[in-house]
């Protein structure tokens, strides 16, 4: 990790620690989605295990959009991004730090959400529970790397809050599918999630590389 990446990351974490904007908005939104789904479907037993992966992924996805939409808001508010554009450090480090910060924020929300989720859906994990610690970070990374990139891309648009989910969700579909299938496989214990995990790894590598390569163009676009 280079010093500029660390500098950007510490700055983002310090600002979030003081404002708690991203985590609070995500947490309440995700809780709302989980509770509403549980009321709507009244999940129990095997049915709960079958839909839990999808509910968790969709709750994370919708909740993350509120934070991702704000990911670059502070940089735009007082033209801080212009000062960052003028600094002689690579834009990729700014991007990667922002992705890492968003990844940590979403992960914190998932950790806080997990006990509520287990209780409300009365879940008993039939497969290898430790694999959830692989699948959820991989799926979250797929979401935030794309979300952070497309949030930067749409930042100059007047309709950016609408534009982000419109661009992000279709791109995220393969990762969402893999995340849901892998989570369901782990919760039910009926199939092997390894193929879906490999798909998530491949997705993450491809989209992280492409985003890193293209971010300088997005950053310096007029």
């Amino acid at each position, binding site marked *: 990790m280079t010093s500029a990446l660390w500098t950007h990351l510490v*700055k983002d974490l310090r600002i979030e620690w003081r404002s708690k904007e991203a985590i609070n908005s995500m947490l309440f939104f995700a809780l709302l989605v989980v509770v509403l789904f549980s009321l709507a479907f009244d999940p129990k037993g095997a049915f709960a295990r079958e839909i839990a992966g999808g509910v968790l992924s969709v709750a994370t996805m919708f909740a993350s959009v509120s934070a991702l939409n704000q990911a670059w808001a*502070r940089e735009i508010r*007082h033209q801080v991004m212009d000062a960052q554009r*003028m*600094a*002689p*450090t690579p834009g990729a480090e700014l991007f990667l730090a922002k992705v890492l910060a968003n990844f940590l924020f979403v992960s914190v929300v998932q950790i806080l959400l997990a006990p509520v989720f287990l209780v409300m859906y009365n879940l008993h994990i039939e497969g290898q529970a430790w694999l959830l610690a692989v699948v959820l970070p991989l799926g979250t990374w797929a979401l935030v790397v794309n979300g952070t990139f497309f949030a930067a891309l749409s930042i100059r648009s007047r309709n950016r809050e609408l534009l982000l989910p419109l661009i992000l969700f279709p791109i995220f579909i393969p990762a969402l599918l893999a995340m849901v299938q892998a989570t369901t496989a782990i919760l039910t214990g009926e199939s092997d999630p390894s193929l879906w995990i490999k798909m998530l790894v491949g997705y993450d590598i491809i989209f992280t590389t492409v985003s890193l390569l293209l971010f300088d163009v997005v950053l310096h676009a007029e």
Partner: protein
Amino acid sequence: MTAQAPEAASSTLCARLDTVSKLFGSFAALRQVSVDLELGRCYVLIGENGAGKSTLLRILAGLLRPSHGTVKVFGGQDPHEARARIGYMSHAPMLYDELTAQENLRYFASLYPGRACLSPAEALRQVGLDPELDRTLGQYSQGMRQRTSLARVLLPAPELLLLDEPFSNMDVESVRQMVELLAGFRQGNRTIVITTHQRDSAAPIADWVLALHAGRVKSFEPGSPTL
């Protein structure tokens, strides 16, 4: 229109704009502007709102690319490539409200690796602020934010300083202090370009006054600096 100081020679040039135009859609913010800026001089850009002052500054900073024409700084470099040597202060503070002045400056100083930066405390003292002030920038007055913004620009000791309306929201005494600070900065053979509506405030350091009107150079005249 070409605007050039009579004694300008390539060895003393800090920046050269050659028939620069900038279009935003069908709106021409700058039209065929040619200006030579010498090292160690202070240029004051005046003009009404929409005259193209800020656009000219952003082009010099490398934040905008001209639609037509060329811009070279420091003997032939593209401004974007030479951005580490250019300091740009905008209308907005370009700082984070949630951080203190010291935290903001430490953050920006660390984005200039390998460049001898002032210490954040020293930069804040230079602009007349208390480095120990334990308040986030969101709690600062507009004038204090403006000074912190100037401190940010001065941190990496830029050779070309671009200041967009630096005297706005400042009281008379603060303006006088800032002008004195800039006079000292210019004596280090560094170039300053200031856009302002308060021509009199910048007069003590104005070596040249460039007037823009509707994106064109209206006049380019020597000033009467006293500092």
